[in-house]
């Protein structure tokens, strides 16, 4: 593989939130960095996602802005990214906090945070449909939410296919459709 794999966490730099978060989260932070936009980015172990979410809620982050995944097929990993933000806390105004966790691609399971942050529920269900990641604890896992029930199903095995994975084959419509 000669293709350069992009780093999963940007290079570290000083950030006003960092000391406060290090005191609160302790050893849950594996690695940290600052994105070019100036947002703090933390790598956490996948087993501590719920613990981190609970502590961030106490710190004043009141909603999950986005939850998505990146498929690193060559490494056999998914990178699940949570973006936390706050409406009400004036100290956290204009701050986005990226929390990232790596999970194996052949057994993609991670704990759900939908009961701590209800705004993450729809994102988890979409992420489950598009990438096949199982969010343990979310009651809607295994059901179709956005996709058509007859779409993206393997004809031989009858199992669902996940359209945003790198190994998904898009239909070939040809040149003139």
């Amino acid at each position: 593989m000669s293709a350069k794999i992009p780093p999963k966490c940007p290079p570290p730099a000083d950030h006003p939130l960092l000391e406060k978060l290090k005191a609160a989260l302790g050893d849950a932070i594996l690695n940290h960095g600052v994105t070019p936009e100036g947002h703090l980015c933390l790598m956490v172990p996948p087993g501590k996602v719920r613990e981190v979410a609970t502590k961030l809620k106490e710190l004043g982050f009141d909603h999950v802005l986005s939850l998505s995944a990146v498929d690193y097929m060559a490494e056999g990993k998914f990178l699940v990214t949570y973006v936390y933000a706050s409406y009400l806390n004036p100290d956290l105004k204009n701050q986005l906090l990226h929390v990232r966790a790596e999970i194996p691609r052949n057994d993609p399971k991670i704990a759900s945070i939908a009961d701590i942050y209800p705004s993450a529920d729809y994102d988890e269900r979409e992420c489950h449909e598009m990438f096949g990641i199982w969010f343990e604890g979310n009651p809607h896992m295994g059901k179709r939410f956005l996709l058509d029930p007859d779409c993206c199903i393997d004809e031989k095995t009858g199992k669902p296919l996940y359209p945003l994975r790198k190994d998904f084959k898009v239909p070939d419509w040809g040149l003139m459709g």
Partner: protein
Amino acid sequence: MSQALREFLLKKAKLEKLFKWGVRWSLWPVHLVTSCCGVEVAHTSGPGFDAERWGVLPFHTMRQSNVILVEGTITKKMAKVLKMVYEQMPEPKYVIAMGACAVRGGLFWNSYHVVQVDTVVPVDVYIAGCPPTPEAVIRAFIMLHNKIKGQPGPYVEPTKVDLTPYLPPPPKPQPKPMAQQAG
């Protein structure tokens, strides 16, 4: 008496022509707004373009209308709704596919979740553009008029313009390098 009247209406009086005339000037489209083309249809029915001059009255329910305007991308989930809407409409019914997405997928070409409209319902008129202008929508309705009348084809013939005096002269053919090497 009624039998004689029926015979008269069907054979002597040209009822078919009257029927087509009536249909032609009351094309009531039901909107299937799935994308931004719906904004252009709003302009079409507005006071600026006023498509009601051609009898195009935007309508909300499919059971009282006879044209379905597909305005945008049709996903596989929405294709079932489109089929259901189409089957609820009374005869005669017509379909207009509006915009690049409805015609051939457009921006969402080769997508896992997008279908082309003519694979779901039979389409009478296509409107190209992304999004098409209100003039193009009105032109599509006039093409539908002509189709009902029995003269399908574009209403406006494109004017041919000779641009050769304004264009640079065509480049002279260069001798092939292979031939030079051989010589």
